[in-house]
């Protein structure tokens, strides 16, 4: 396949959407086409970086705060587990 046609497939290559035979054909063509190679490599790195992002942590504190917001707004909701002691509200000790 001509390089002009292969260049149109760079977005699919970056997203791992091509069959392996076509991926290999692109990689062979990229050996002599530095601009296409740079495009392929940098775009795939971008996709791989995004896809390996673990994302924000859904902490126990966030889980409980959302439950409290739901309670406060009148939703009938039963948590599977009670809130840990450090997240429960306490009355101040009278001295």
């Amino acid at each position, binding site marked *: 396949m001509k390089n002009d046609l292969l260049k149109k497939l760079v977005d699919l290559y970056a997203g791992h959407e091509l069959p392996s035979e076509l991926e290999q054909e692109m990689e062979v063509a990229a050996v002599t086409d530095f601009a296409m190679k740079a495009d392929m490599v940098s775009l795939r790195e971008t996709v791989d970086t995004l896809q390996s992002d673990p994302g924000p942590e859904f902490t126990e504190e*966030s889980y409980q705060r959302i439950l409290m917001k739901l309670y406060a707004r009148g*939703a009938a909701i039963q948590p599977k587990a009670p809130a840990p002691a450090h997240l429960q509200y306490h009355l101040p000790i009278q001295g």
Partner: protein
Amino acid sequence: MAEKRWLTALSEGDPNALGGIYELYGERIFRYTFRMLGNRTDAEDATAETFLRVVRRSAELRADGAFRTWLFRIARNLCIDKLRQHKLMELPPDAQYSGAEERTTLRVTVHQALNDLPLEYREPLIYCDLEEMSAKEAADILKISVPALKSRLYRGRRALRDKLGSAMERTP
């Protein structure tokens, strides 16, 4: 099919149903809203409000497989409302994620670059690359065609790549 069971229970007024749905989808909706809004407090608010709207509209629910799309649409609308409020009040997003691994320079740079992208490009990246949804599901949430979604996704990836530029080259 836990989803079907909880949705049926919710439509029948079972008081345990919302808890079940929250257990199933709470984390995904929180992660999504955090990625859209860029801070934990707003993400918690938007997640709670999403589930409250599920309860309020439980009469419309059908356990036909489209629930997740509907749920993400509710969360998306809430996020867009909040983003508009931020814009009006000129509040910058706080893109700090907790967790040692997430504090690496590249991750912070990626999150900042993502937040700088126009929403039109940012959303397909969140759905398809970060939340690992299919193009069809992402297109359904955005109410656009799959080719339109893919066009935005590919342009978004290129825009993000250009913003990241040298930061990616410096990372081994």
